[in-house]
C-alpha cells in the first residue's frame, strides 16, 4: 500500500474491502510522525482520528450508508473553524481558541465521512506568501527543507505533497492556495468568489478570499470541489452554481480551445527556468490541439498595489475583534483600563499583521479614503473589465503561478515588498473573483514549478478539464522526503 494513492483508487479499495480507513489513517499518522520534525506542516493533529476511522470502518462492514470520502485523511488550514479542535490562525492571539462550530466546508466534509487529520500551518491570519510568519514557526518545503513552501496555505501544500493527507483545504486571498501548490508540486484551486461558503473561515480580506482545495491531482481537486461547492444559508455572498459534477467529463481535452498567454506575466522579471517551463507548457497545449495567443492585461501591473490596499483595509476591520475580551489567549485584565489592555494584548500580533493593520487603518482614514481605497477599487474594476474583455476572445488564460522558484527560508523575510511582489501573477483572480488553478508542471534544480490557468467566473469545469489535460502530459518524480 502506498500513501500516494489517488482518491478514486482509495475509495475503490475501501469499497472492495482491500483497505480499511483505520489502516490508512494509522499509516498516515506514522508518516506524519516521521516527517513533521522536518516539515512542520501541522499546528495540531486530530487525537481522535483512529477512533473516527474505526467508526467509519464499522459502517462499511455493516453495509450502512457511507459518505463519499470513506474516512480519507484531509488537512484543514488552521484559519478554518473546526468544532472541538483549536483554530489558531497561527497567531498568539488565538492560541487557545476553540470554535463552537464547524465551518460549512468542514461540516460538508465530515458529513461525507472525511477525517480531519490535522490543522495545517499558515502565515499568521493568512498574511504572507511563505508561511514564515506563523507564530508557531515556519513550514518547510518537502522538496528541499531549506526552502519555503510558499504560502500562506504552506501547511496545506506541504501536507499534501509530503503524503501526510490525501487532500487539504486552504484559503486563497492573493494566491495563498496556488503559491504553495506551485512551490510544493501539487494542484491548488482558487474557485470563483461565492462558489464556496466562507462561513467559518476567519476573515482576513472578506471581499477577496475564497477557500480552495489542494490535492495531488486535478481529479482529486474536482472530487473535493464537488463536496464543498454550493450556496450556503450562512454566507450571503455565496452564489448559485447549478451544482455540476466537476469530476464528470474531465477527459474532454483542449482541442479547439483558445488559450490567452498573459504577456505581462511571462516576460521581464520572470525566472529563466520558470519562463522555459511556461513555454514548454504552451507548446504542450498546442500539441493537444489548443490555440495559444498572447493577450495583454496591462492593469495587472497595478494589481499588487490595489490588492495590498484593499486587503489591508478589510483586514484592519476584520481583525479589530481580537481584543482578547471574549476569547483568545491567557492574559489577565488586572491592572489595565480598557484602552491600555487592548493595546497591550494586541501587541502580540506579529510583524506582518501589524504592518497590514497600520496600512489598512491608514488607507481608510478620513482624507485618504478617496486617494487610496477608492482608487484601489477603480483598479479592481479595471482589472475585472479587462478580464471580461479577454474572455470574449479566449476560453482560458495562462501564466506561471509564481514568477520565481522557491527560495530559502529567511532569504526575503526582511523585505516585505519583495514578498508582496511574489503575488504578481495570482492576484488578478482574487480582485476579479474569477477561478484559477495551479498545476505542477516541471522541476528545476530539484524545485517545483507550477503553471496557472484562469477561466471566467463559474467556469470551473472548463478550468479543471484543461488543467487535467495538462497534468496528464507530465511525469514528475515523487516527493524526495
Amino acid at each position, binding site marked *: 500500500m502506498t500513501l500516494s494513492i489517488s482518491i478514486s483508487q482509495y475509495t475503490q479499495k475501501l469499497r472492495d474491502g482491500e483497505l480499511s480507513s483505520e489502516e490508512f489513517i494509522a499509516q498516515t499518522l506514522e508518516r506524519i510522525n516521521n516527517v513533521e520534525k522536518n516539515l512542520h506542516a501541522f499546528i495540531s493533529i486530530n487525537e481522535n482520528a483512529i477512533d473516527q476511522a474505526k467508526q467509519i470502518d464499522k459502517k462499511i462492514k455493516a453495509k450502512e450508508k457511507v459518505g463519499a470520502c470513506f474516512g480519507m485523511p484531509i488537512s484543514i488550514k488552521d484559519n478554518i473553524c473546526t468544532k472541538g479542535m483549536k483554530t489558531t490562525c497561527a497567531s498568539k492571539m488565538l492560541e487557545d481558541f476553540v470554535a463552537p462550530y464547524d*465551518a460549512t466546508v468542514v461540516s460538508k466534509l465530515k458529513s461525507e465521512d472525511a477525517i480531519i487529520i490535522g490543522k495545517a500551518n499558515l502565515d499568521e491570519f493568512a498574511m504572507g506568501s511563505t508561511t514564515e510568519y506563523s507564530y508557531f514557526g515556519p513550514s518547510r518545503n518537502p522538496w528541499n527543507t531549506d526552502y519555503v513552501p510558499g504560502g500562506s496555505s504552506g501547511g496545506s501544500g506541504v501536507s499534501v505533497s509530503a503524503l501526510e493527507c490525501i487532500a487539504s483545504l486552504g484559503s486563497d486571498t492573493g494566491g495563498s492556495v496556488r503559491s504553495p501548490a506551485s512551490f510544493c508540486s501539487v494542484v491548488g484551486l482558487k474557485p470563483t468568489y461565492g462558489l464556496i461558503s466562507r462561513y467559518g473561515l*476567519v*476573515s482576513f480580506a472578506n*471581499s477577496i478570499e475564497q477557500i480552495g482545495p489542494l490535492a495531488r491531482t486535478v481529479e482529486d481537486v474536482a472530487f473535493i470541489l464537488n463536496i464543498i461547492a454550493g450556496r450556503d444559508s450562512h454566507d*450571503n455572498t455565496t452564489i448559485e452554481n447549478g451544482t455540476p459534477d466537476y469530476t464528470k467529463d474531465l477527459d474532454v481535452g483542449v482541442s479547439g480551445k483558445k488559450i490567452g498567454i498573459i504577456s505581462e506575466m511571462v516576460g521581464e522579471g520572470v525566472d529563466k527556468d520558470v519562463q522555459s517551463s511556461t513555454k514548454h507548457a504552451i507548446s504542450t497545449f498546442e500539441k493537444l490541439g489548443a490555440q495559444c495567443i498572447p493577450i495583454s492585461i496591462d492593469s495587472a501591473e497595478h494589481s499588487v498595489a490595489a490588492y495590498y490596499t484593499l486587503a489591508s483595509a478589510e483586514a*484592519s476591520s476584520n481583525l479589530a475583534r481580537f481584543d482578547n475580551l471574549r476569547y483568545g489567549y491567557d492574559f489577565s485584565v488586572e491592572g489595565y483600563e*480598557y484602552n491600555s489592555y487592548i493595546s497591550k494584548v494586541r501587541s502580540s500580533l506579529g510583524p506582518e499583521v501589524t504592518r497590514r493593520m497600520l496600512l489598512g487603518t491608514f488607507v481608510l482614514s478620513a482624507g485618504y479614503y478617496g486617494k487610496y481605497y477608492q482608487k484601489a477599487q477603480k483598479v479592481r474594476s479595471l482589472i475585472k473589465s479587462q478580464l471580461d474583455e479577454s474572455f470574449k476572445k479566449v476560453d482560458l488564460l495562462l501564466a506561471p503561478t509564481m514568477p520565481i522558484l522557491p527560495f530559502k527560508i529567511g532569504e526575503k523575510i526582511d523585505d516585505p515588498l519583495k514578498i508582496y511582489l511574489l503575488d504578481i501573477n495570482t492576484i488578478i483572480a482574487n480582485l476579479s473573483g474569477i477561478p484559477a488553478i495551479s498545476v505542477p508542471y516541471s522541476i528545476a534544480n530539484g524545485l517545483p514549478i507550477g503553471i496557472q490557468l484562469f477561466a471566467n467566473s463559474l467556469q470551473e469545469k472548463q478550468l479543471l478539464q484543461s488543467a487535467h489535460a495538462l497534468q496528464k502530459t507530465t511525469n514528475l518524480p515523487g516527493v524526495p522526503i
Partner: protein
Amino acid sequence: MTKIGLEIHCQLTKLESKLFCSCKADYRSFEPNSNICPVCMGLPGSLPILNKKSVEKAAMLSIALGCKIPPKIGFFRKNYFYPDLPKNFQITQYNAYGPTSIGYDGMIMIEDKEIRIRRIQLEEDPGRLVYSGSSEKTQITLVDYNRAGTPLVEIVTEPDFENPKQVRIFLNILADLVENLGVADPYLEGAFRVDGNISIEKGNRVEIKNVGSFRDIEKALHFEITRQQSLAERGILIPAETRHWDEARKITVSSRSKEEEQDYRYFPEEDIPKIIIEKTLIDNLKKTMPESIMSKKEKYINKYGIPTQVAEVLSSDKFYSDLFEQSHTEKNTKEIANLITTDLKGFADTKEQREQLKLTPKHLCDLADSILSNKITRASGKMALQEILKTGKPLSEVISSLDLGHVDDESSLVKAIDEVFTEEQKAVSEAKQNPDTINYLVGKVMRKTKGKSDPSLTLDIIRKKLDSQ
C-alpha cells in the same frame, strides 16, 4: 435663530429575530448573555445574514416619512473600539458616497411646519454595559450582549426645529406613527432613544447625547438654550462639543471625550451584497401597510362624520383605532367612537390595563347598537361597559344580570311618573308655568327606574300629563 436637529434610534421591536442572526430581537426577558450566538458575538469565522424582514419594516417607515428609497441599498462598517461592540465595528448604512441607506430626503408636517428627514438607516444595536461595584475603586464594567445585533433604524432630521416644543410634538407624532405602522413599540424601555443637536444664533453646534427617555429631550434642549444664551450674553464663544444629559441633575455636561474627532473609517460591508429594492416591493408595501394616522383621521371626519377632536384622539392611538376599525358597522361609527374616546377613558390608558382588558370588538358593536336602538340608555351603556371590561361576559348577559334593560313597558313607566307627581307636587306646579323645570321631573323618574327608562319617552308622557292637568 435657534436650530435643532434630531437623531432618533428606534428599535424594530416587532421583528422576530436580530438583524444578522436568528437570536431573538426581543432580548428583554433573557438572563444576561443568553440571547447570543457566534454571529452576534462576532466570533472568528462568523458571517452576518441579513434579516430580509427588517428591510421591509424600514422601507415601510421610509415610505411613511415621505423618504426616497434608492434602487439598491448597501451596508457599511463603522469602525471603533468599544466593549459593547463584539466585532469592534458596527454594521450600519452610510450615505457619504451616494444614497444607499433605506430612506433619504423625506419630510413630515407637524402642525404647519415642515420637518425634513435627512436619512433613515438600518443598523445593529450594540450590547449593553452595566456598571457594578460599590465604590469607585471596586467598580467593574459588565457587558451583556443580549441586545447586540438588535435591528434598529436611525432617523436623522435636518436642523428644522426652532424650539423644544416643536421637538416634543414631532416625537409624539413619530412615536404614534411607528406604533401605528407596526414596526416598533416606542414605549418599551430603550426602544426609542433620541439624541439632539442645537445651535443658537451665531453659535456652534452642540450635540446632546445619552438622553434616556424621549420625554427628557425637551428638558435637555431647554437647558441648552438657556446655557448657550447666557454664554452668548457674556460674549463667550459657544464651543462645538458633545454634551451628555445628566438625568439626576437635569443638566447637560460636557463629555470631554474625543468623540467629534473620532474617525470611524467607514467602508463597505462586503459580507452583505447590495440589496436591490424592487419597485414591486415598494408598491406592495404601499398597498398593504397600515393606513396612516393622517388618512385615518380624514376618513373619520369626512366619511363617518366624527367630530374633529374625537377623530384626532381615535386616529393617533393605534390601540383605539384598531378597536374602532374592528368593531364598527356603517351605522354605529359615531357611537363607537364616543364609547372608545370617552367611556373607555381611565380603563385602557396604560399598557397593563390594555393587556388585561376583556373587551372584544363584538362587545363594542353590540353596545353601540343597543344604545342606538334604545334597548339601553347611554348611562346604562356606560355601566355595562365597565362590567364587560372586568368580566368579559356577553352584553346580553350583563344587561340582564345588572337589570339594565329599558323600562319599555309603558304602564310601569306611567306608574313611576304618577308616583313622582304625587311626591313632587311643588315641582309639578312650577313645571306647568316654566317648562325648563320639566327636566327635574324627568331626572326624578330616571332615578326611580334606575336609569332604565327611555328619557325621551319619559319626557313625552310627563308633558302630556302636565297638559292634561
